[in-house]
């Protein structure tokens, strides 16, 4: 084993060597520099693996004395890891900066080496004066590297950096002097034993030391200089500051944290949280990529600072939490800075350039998701553990602030991602990439992925996760170049096989929702055959969503559930953003999902208090705050079911999605929320706040959602938007049914879920086929298509009869059960709203079929063909099932009833053949089908006989007495179809909720804008900020 001291000797020696041999070829110098850093890294790595496998920590004593008489270095687990990271960043950064280092000559390389070396020493040293010295060296190194960039911005940034670190160093030096005075030593371990914090002067000395380290970490709001440095510096240097330097300083803080009392740790936590929230808040308003990365870096470091402060409460999980979040930040931030250097455009909107090289977009996506903490990245685990531990230790405010900060971070990061995926890129220059710039980015992406999976395997709760679906996704990514029909077949086969393997384990709700998710997924995938070409990137994402959905079904623990939930969110986000004009909709989908996910996380955290296991049934025995847990989880799930108030993401997202994605995200994805609610209600049962039943509120929410969704649907001009709002309304019925907590209510809800899946797939595919043919979604631009697309017409007709709940089709069954459930339960007023919504559904049903299929065929659609076969096939498969369920209602309802019987034994339906009897009424779907069919056939035969010789006429042969129609578009009554209705009741759907969210987001933006004004770019102000910060913190502590 090589002594850690050689990390220093190697790098410093190389620096001297290339300095001595000035004449040496620049290429060779660069190579030497990289080799030196690589060697240093190898030393760290070897120590890291050794210590992990049980070797003892190494201590290095310089000058032959033991501490406190000499400087000593320690190489423990932490030191090994951090130096490894630093050297890794140094190596990759060196590769990345190769060209600019060579351009600026040999001295830059020396500075770079010294900078890396000093960071290593900062991490390893146990002597605070030594620490100070090398911090100075590192500062000067950074400033030098920054200033060497030949732009005025860079020069200013370097200058500010020097001034700020100078001020901080002064304070640190004072602190060190006093500490030495009181403790009589500079060695950290000895100082700790000296317990100088027991008297005030001693604690002030420690305070000064610690506060200056914190200031080095750029706490909010005394961090304007840091932001300016990030903005002004070369992105390659920015990466070093953000990844390497910040990691080192964090470690220093961690190292010194042993010196301070717990009360001081709380302040550190508070500062960290404040920085996390504040930086992310300000990040929202940024449009400059590097500056935004700066805010994000500072925010993440703030979070890590807080974690250091929280160490006493995190117990054994501290290392996991801190390291996983640090590593995510390290790789992602370095990668992003490097990407920024490749793009060379500072405006976020110009990042649409990345689309020119799709693999760069993939890398970018990986970094963004890693930063936010999606699975399978390490920060996901870290965040989960952190929240669980915080909940355990009753740090609810901190928990809330961390989630808020993460959410704020999500806002700007996902907006950025959206820009790069969807923004107009017409006027952007071509993107050129050099190998030396791309390799570090790729390696960091691999690093973050690999470490994520590694953390997954070493962590106990994550050990049960199944990675097989993820492997399958990876396989699909590999074969992405193949044509659609191959990948489609592979995907269908994959899902089918998976369903086959897990089918025996499914029962009850899991069976029903498993079938909706997987069989439904196969069905909607069948439609995908109508696409030609390769459809790049589509199948891995679809499978990601389905992997998430199936994960929900299979989840046994809250962790698995949340893991699957996040996978599903990520997959569906990408599916949604693939649609046309879907940038903003995908963003709002993501933000609502993110907020929902954080609520769920918080809910699981609270539920976990006082529990040892993570199994899902801990929800059944929540120890404290049960109503709160319920509300958090319910709202979290309701973001997916798009209940009123949380629905605004849905219409745009569903309407703009691709033809066969719409049914996936509408008919299938929404059921994830329903499944979550069912799990929640099953486990937690009735919940009361005081004597108020929360379920009653849910019933109202469901009812209002139903009315509002249906009414909005009636007023839409866009066919897919209409269907999207109709989903909102229908999910309202389901929530309403669930809220009853009775046999019939749940029977209605579950059967409506199945029915909703069927008809919404049917309708979205049918309308998608039309849109595919006529190239517009505006219904008033269509009309008369029945003659061109009779098969599609039939499926839409059946679909709307089901939605409307008109007998004899299966939609009526749900209505009938709901009536009986209401009579049993007695919540009449929300019920009246639900029935009102049911009638309002007629409006949009009719509008859909009239304005699209009936009325006048337009000029340009005279030669339109029927929808593609592959879109019709799944529709007719579903139609057959609908007819079966309609004729034999007990084939659907009886099994669900049997499944519900153990949960709600009271009030089950009584079946006599196809006759269902409830406490109030009865209904025989089969007989109704026969009677209605019989009458229909008789009347039809008679009428047909009477008018068998009828003259067929064309579309304008209509009974005008005087003028006759001349243009189809002026004769087709379609636009604003329900104008009088809108006049009477339109106020009910005035966009209050949209306005609310709009003003909320505007408010956040405005605050962000106000707050960032404190950074005026003036170095004196920044120095003042630093001093004021110290004073304020001092006043708080003492």
């Amino acid at each position, binding site marked *: 084993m090589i002594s850690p001291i050689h990390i220093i000797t190697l790098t410093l020696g190389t620096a001297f060597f290339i300095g001595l041999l000035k004449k040496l070829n620049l290429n060779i110098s660069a190579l030497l520099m990289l080799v030196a850093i690589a060697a240093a890294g190898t030393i760290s790595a070897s120590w890291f693996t050794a210590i992990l496998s049980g070797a003892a920590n190494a201590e290095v004593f310089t000058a032959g004395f033991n501490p406190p008489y000499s400087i000593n270095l320690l190489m423990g687990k932490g030191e090994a890891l951090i130096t490894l990271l630093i050297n890794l960043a140094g190596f990759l950064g060196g590769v990345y900066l190769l060209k600019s280092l060579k351009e600026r000559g040999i001295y830059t390389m020396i500075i770079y080496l010294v900078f890396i070396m000093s960071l290593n020493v900062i991490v390893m040293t146990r002597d605070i004066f030594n620490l100070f010295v090398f911090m100075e060296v590192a500062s000067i190194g950074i400033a030098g590297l920054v200033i060497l960039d030949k732009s005025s911005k860079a020069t200013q940034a370097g200058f500010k950096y020097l001034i700020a670190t100078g001020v901080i160093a002064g304070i640190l030096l004072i602190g060190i002097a006093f500490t030495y005075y009181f403790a009589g030593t500079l060695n950290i371990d000895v100082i700790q034993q000296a317990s100088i914090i027991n008297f005030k002067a001693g604690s002030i000395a420690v305070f000064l030391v610690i506060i200056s380290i914190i200031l080095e970490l750029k706490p909010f709001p005394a961090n304007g200089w840091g932001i300016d440095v990030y903005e002004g510096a070369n992105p390659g240097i920015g990466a070093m500051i953000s990844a390497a330097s910040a990691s080192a300083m964090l470690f220093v803080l961690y190292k010194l944290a042993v010196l301070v009392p717990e009360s001081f740790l709380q302040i550190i936590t508070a500062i960290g949280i404040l920085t996390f929230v504040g930086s992310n808040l300000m990040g929202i308003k940024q449009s400059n990529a590097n500056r935004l990365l700066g805010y994000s870096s500072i925010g993440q470091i703030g979070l890590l600072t807080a974690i250091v402060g929280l160490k006493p409460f995190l117990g054994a999980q501290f290392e996991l939490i801190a390291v996983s979040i640090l590593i995510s930040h390290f790789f992602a931030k370095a990668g992003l800075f490097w990407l920024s250097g490749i793009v060379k455009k500072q405006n976020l909107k110009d990042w649409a350039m990345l689309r020119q090289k799709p693999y760069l977009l993939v890398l970018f996506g990986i970094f963004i998701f890693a930063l936010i903490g999606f699975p399978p990245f390490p920060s996901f685990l870290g965040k989960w553990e952190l929240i669980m531990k915080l909940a355990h230790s009753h740090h609810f405010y901190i928990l809330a602030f961390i989630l808020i900060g993460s959410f704020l971070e999500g806002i700007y990061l996902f907006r950025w991602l959206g820009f790069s995926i969807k923004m107009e890129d017409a006027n952007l220059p071509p993107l050129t990439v050099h190998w030396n710039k791309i390799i570090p980015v790729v390696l960091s992406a691999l690093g973050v992925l690999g470490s994520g999976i590694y953390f997954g395997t070493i962590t106990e709760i994550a050990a049960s996760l199944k990675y097989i679906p993820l492997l399958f996704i990876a396989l699909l990514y590999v074969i992405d170049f193949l044509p659609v029909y191959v990948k489609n077949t592979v995907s269908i086969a994959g899902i089918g096989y998976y369903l086959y393997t897990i089918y025996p384990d499914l029962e009850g709700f899991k069976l029903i929702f498993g079938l909706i998710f997987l069989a439904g997924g196969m069905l909607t995938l069948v439609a995908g055959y109508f696409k030609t070409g390769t459809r790049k990137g589509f199948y891995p994402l679809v499978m990601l969503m389905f992997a998430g959905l199936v994960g929900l079904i299979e989840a046994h623990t809250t962790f698995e559930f949340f893991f699957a939930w996040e996978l599903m969110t990520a997959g569906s986000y990408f599916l949604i953003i693939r649609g046309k004009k879907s940038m903003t909709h995908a963003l709002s989908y993501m933000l609502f999902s993110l907020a929902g996910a954080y609520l769920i996380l918080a809910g699981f955290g609270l539920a976990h208090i006082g529990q040892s296991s993570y199994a899902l049934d801990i929800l059944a025995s929540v120890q404290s705050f049960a109503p709160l847990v319920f509300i958090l989880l319910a709202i979290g799930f309701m973001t997916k079911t798009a209940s009123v108030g949380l629905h605004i993401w849905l219409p745009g997202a569903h309407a703009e999605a691709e033809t066969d994605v719409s049914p996936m995200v509408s008919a299938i994805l929404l059921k994830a929320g329903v499944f979550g609610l069912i799990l929640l209600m099953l486990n937690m049962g009735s919940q009361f706040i005081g004597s108020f039943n929360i379920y009653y509120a849910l019933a109202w929410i469901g009812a209002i959602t139903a009315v509002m969704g249906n009414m909005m649907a009636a007023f839409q001009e866009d066919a897919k938007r209409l269907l999207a709002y109709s989903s909102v309304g229908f999910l309202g019925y389901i929530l309403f049914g669930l809220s009853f907590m009775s046999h019939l209510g749940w029977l209605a809800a579950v059967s409506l879920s199945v029915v909703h899946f069927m008809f919404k797939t049917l309708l979205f595919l049918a309308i998608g086929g039309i849109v595919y*043919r*006529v*190239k*517009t979604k505006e219904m008033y631009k269509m009309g008369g298509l029945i003659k061109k697309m009779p098969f599609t017409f039939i499926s839409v007709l059946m679909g709307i009869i089901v939605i409307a709940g008109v007998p004899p089709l299966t939609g009526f069954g749900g209505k009938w059960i709901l009536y009986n459930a209401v009579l049993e339960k007695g919540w009449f007023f929300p019920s009246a709203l639900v029935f009102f919504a049911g009638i309002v559904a007629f409006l949009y049903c009719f509008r859909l079929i009239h304005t699209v299929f009936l009325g006048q065929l337009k*000029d*340009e*659609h*005279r*030669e*339109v063909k029927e929808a593609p076969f592959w879109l019709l096939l799944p529709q007719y498969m579903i139609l057959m099932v609908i007819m079966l369920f309609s004729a034999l209602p007990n084939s659907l309802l009886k099994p669900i009833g049997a499944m519900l019987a153990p949960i709600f034994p009271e009030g089950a339906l009584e079946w006599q053949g196809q006759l269902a009897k409830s406490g109030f009424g009865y209904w025989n779907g089969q007989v109704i089908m026969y009677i209605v069919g019989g009458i229909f056939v008789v009347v039809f035969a008679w009428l047909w006989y009477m008018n068998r010789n009828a*003259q*067929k*006429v*064309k*579309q*304008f*042969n209509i*009974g*005008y*007495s*005087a*003028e*006759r*129609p*001349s*243009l*189809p578009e002026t004769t087709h009554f379609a636009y604003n179809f329900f104008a009088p209705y809108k006049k009477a009741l339109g106020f009910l759907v005035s966009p209050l909720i949209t306005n609310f969210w709009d003003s909320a987001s505007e408010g956040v933006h405005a605050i962000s804008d106000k707050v960032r004004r404190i950074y005026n770019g003036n170095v004196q102000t920044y120095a003042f900020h630093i001093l004021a910060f110290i004073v304020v913190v001092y006043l708080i502590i003492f």
Partner: protein
Amino acid sequence: MKEDFKKRTVITPEGKPLEIDPVKDYFSDARPKVHKPANPVIEKFANWARANSLWVLGFGTGCGAIEMRPLMTPRFDAYRYGIQWRPTPRQASVFVISGYLSVKTLKRVVRTYEQMQNPKFVVGLGSCTINGGMYWDSYNTINRLDHYLPVDVYIAGCMPRPESLLHGFEELKKIIKEGRGEGANKYAEEFDWYKANQKKVIKDWDMPDYNW
């Protein structure tokens, strides 16, 4: 011809040009058919029903329209004779040409008449429909309605009083009951003659020969 009835080229959703000839593409150009009376017994019964259920099209073509309104008032009360007004030609069976008929209106009248279903009856109201009346030498009003449509009953006068109108309806009933109300078939049989006459006066003929 109105601009909208001329041929136009549109672009289909696939981006191909497509020529539309509105008159051909949007209107059926089938010729009218002769519907011979069925079995005499049934026909007698049917004629009784037709005679007692006269649904008059609410289309006032000229000044005589004002004479039709009082028929619905308590004073004349045409309802008691089975006469009702109907706003759409599809459902009406009697077309009252109320007074002078300008060429421009004639075009609409022909169109409307053809949209009514067989059997259908035409009542010429006032002298103008018989020989042009006071507009006999006008450059713009027709003189003899029966050259353009098969007329069942003429009611002379300028203007005839509502009583005469009622009398005319009674005459029409008699005609129908006797099975002589076959104007629609006559129109179909002598279609070419009627069309030639119509086209002689209606100069911008921008519709198919028969308006279904």
